[in-house]
């Protein structure tokens, strides 16, 4: 058993009368030989780590070391608490939880890659908002992670999930598509509807480039995660209304691959294009990296001294040549 397309997936779900999440557990059991309960518990551990990152992030107003992110999750929460949110509680809570996770990620906090760290805010955002606003308990959310991983598994093996390989469409695009299908299944929609939601969400993010300012997973990554949650809910609502993607999901995924292959290197996580090379983006890079270079230089000087020391004590020397 190795599901490589949404076509295979839907065939399996229909033949076995199973959900997408159950199909994932079947496949994992088949491939790894691990008992299903152990597989479930491993996924539950990941959900718990996600919850911790959300909870900590919602309380933490500190800046990332770069100084270009941090504090927005707390602002979002205060805005929600004030009680006059345009997009309603499901979407606004998802935005806050997503921001909390992505801000923690930027601080080098502990997160769960879903499927990547750059896109780690979207699934927890969606899941913990559903947990807060509906009757879905934590075990149901774990099943949601199996739905998400099945969809992500197909995307990752047919296309890509890293910004360096395929642009942001491969990261935030994939995560949003996975989240859309997951919401549908958690809301009781059919596997077909979940796959349509996946396709619709991914279509809306095709072509999105990876252009992180100074190469940091902060600007524009954090806000793209936050907005990804809204797209996931919109796609899920369409699918639950029985609206279908006119282009089949597998073809959308293959298109994401083709677009990524044609994307210039400057727009694939090299920080050499897009928002990264705006005047402000360049200023940030200059400010941050001149600081780092200085530290390296000082370190180098210190270690030279200690290497000349008669005791022969060698300290670490981080020599990083300047490329310019």
């Amino acid at each position, binding site marked *: 058993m190795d599901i490589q397309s949404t076509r295979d997936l839907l065939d399996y779900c229909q033949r076995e009368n199973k959900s997408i999440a159950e199909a*994932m557990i079947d*496949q*994992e059991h088949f*491939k790894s030989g691990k008992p299903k309960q152990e597989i479930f518990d*491993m*996924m539950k551990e*990941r959900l718990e*780590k996600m919850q911790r990152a959300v909870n900590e992030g919602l309380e933490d107003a500190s800046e990332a070391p*770069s100084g270009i992110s941090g504090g927005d999750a707390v602002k979002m929460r205060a805005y929600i608490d004030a009680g006059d949110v345009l997009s309603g509680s499901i979407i606004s809570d998802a935005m806050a939880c997503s921001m909390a996770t992505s801000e923690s*990620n*930027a*601080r*080098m*906090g*502990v*997160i*769960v*890659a*879903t*499927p*990547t*760290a*750059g896109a*780690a805010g979207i699934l927890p955002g969606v899941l913990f908002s559903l947990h807060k606003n509906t009757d879905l308990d934590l075990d149901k959310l774990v099943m949601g*992670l*199996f739905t*998400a*991983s099945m969809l*992500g*598994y197909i995307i*990752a*093996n047919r296309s*890509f*999930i*890293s*910004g*360096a*390989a395929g642009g942001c469409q491969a990261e935030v695009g994939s995560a949003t598509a*996975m989240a859309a299908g997951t919401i549908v299944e958690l809301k009781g929609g059919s596997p077909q509807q979940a796959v349509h939601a996946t396709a619709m969400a991914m279509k809306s993010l095709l072509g999105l480039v990876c252009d992180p300012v*100074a*190469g*940091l*997973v*902060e600007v524009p990554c954090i806000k793209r995660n936050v907005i990804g949650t809204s797209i996931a809910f919109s796609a899920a609502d369409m699918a639950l209304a029985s609206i279908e993607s006119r282009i089949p999901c597998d073809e959308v995924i293959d298109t994401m691959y083709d677009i990524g292959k044609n994307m210039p290197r400057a727009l*694939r*996580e*090299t*920080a050499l294009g897009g928002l990264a090379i705006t005047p402000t983006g360049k200023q940030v890079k200059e400010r*941050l990296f001149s600081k*780092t270079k200085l530290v390296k230089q000082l*370190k180098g000087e210190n270690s030279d001294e200690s290497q000349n020391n008669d005791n022969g*004590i*060698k*300290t*670490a020397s*981080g*020599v*990083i*040549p300047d*490329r310019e």
Partner: protein
Amino acid sequence: MGYNSCFDIIGPIMVGPSSSHTAGAVWIGRAVFELLGEAPDRVEITLYDSFAETYQGHGTDKALLGGLLGFDTEDVRIKHAYDHAEEINLIHTFILEESCPEFNHPNVAIIKAEKGNKILEVGGASVGGGLSQIFRINNIKVEFTISTNEDLKKVVKYKNA
């Protein structure tokens, strides 16, 4: 390509900020640690392409050092890997290059490590989502992936390579 498990997609549990540039880099460093059975005395790490362009922002250098020190992807000590490397006198040099001629991927690191009189060279590519592919150990071409602690067993097989 190469994703085998739901935990390749949901996971790893890791310190941020990047699964490919941080967690994946930990695995490449960790492969060296596992092969030596301990942290090396000296390393020369060549970063290629996207790794070379963005290692500072992603903490790729800290992640590789963390792996070389035997840390897991979720170990919060990675943030201060330079200090921990210094504590054990691990001498480290980074070299930055454009595309890797040996392996066609933007996130490649090749680590030359020394421990006592042992010399080891490992090439790895972080292909996305915290999954790394090891493509060379010394002069032997290999092809296996690491995305969990369990996968590290695949490395140990090459201990006498």
